């Protein structure tokens, strides 16, 4: 059985490799929703974006629009999601502990 720490590290590493490889291997066909939107003609009805993203469409503007740019963006995304989910867990956990201390 794999230890807890190595499972977490391996899981994040596998995810980072998957996300990076997506830049080369992922299909660029429109996905299910995009295809239906095209077919039924509501793709152009998407609302104008209300905020500006630093990394629009998984491409880092400073690295151009090649696959490497997507690979770096994907890897960074994996780390960001891991950190966000971890942070949210910690935040909820510390709120649980607080009342216990007061008692």
């Amino acid at each position, binding site marked *: *059985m*794999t230890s*807890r720490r190595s*499972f*977490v590290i391996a*899981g*994040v590493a*596998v*995810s*980072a490799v*998957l*996300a990076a*490889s*997506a830049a080369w*291997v*992922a*299909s*660029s*066909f*429109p*996905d*299910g*929703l995009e*295809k*239906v939107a095209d*077919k*039924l*003609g*509501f793709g152009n*009805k*998407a*609302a104008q*974006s*209300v*905020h*500006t*993203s*630093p*990394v*629009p*469409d*998984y491409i880092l503007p400073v690295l151009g629009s090649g696959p490497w740019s997507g690979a770096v*963006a*994907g890897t960074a*995304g*994996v780390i*960001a*999601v*891991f*950190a*966000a*989910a*971890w942070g*949210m*867990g*910690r935040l*909820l*956990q510390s*709120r*649980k502990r607080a009342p216990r201390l007061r008692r």
Partner: protein
Amino acid sequence: MSAAGVGVAARRARSRLDDRTIPLLGVTAAFVFAAQMLNFPVAGGTSGHFSGGVLSAILLGPAAGVLAMTSVLAIQCLVFQDGGLTALGANVFNMAIVGCLGGWAIWRGLVTLAGWRFSRAAAFLSAWLSVVLAASFCAVELGLSGTVPMKPALAAMAGVHAAIGLVEGAATAAILGLIGRVRPDLLERRKR
């Protein structure tokens, strides 16, 4: 509505979050994010990608599963502009609440009926259903918002996602099989 759902999930997940489950929450979310980037071609010049709701719910429990899916969708929206900020609520509802909780309920029901031996077959079936369900909810929402006529949207969304869901189901069952080998303890907790 989505905010309320995620709020309830946060409250329920809190009692189960500890030093063991928080890293798992992070890894599952990171993996789902990565897997959602891997679009695979399905019939007719269309692609699909993994969604991960049922996988997260089985690994983390339904409440923490909703949280993992929500964090994936939030990062996609805020950092990568994939799914607008104004659509985040609907995306969370369809993929985190319908896809994750709905899929979980189906999985739970199937396992109760058929027994733990069939847990992976149940995972395949419930993952497939969760994708079709989430897509159908999305079509109904588009229909209700007047963006597109309801009937053709529902037929097209459910149709395409019936194919995409097969891959979702197969991937969910395969990943659970792998995890059952390296970390059987993670799945043991779902037997009860």
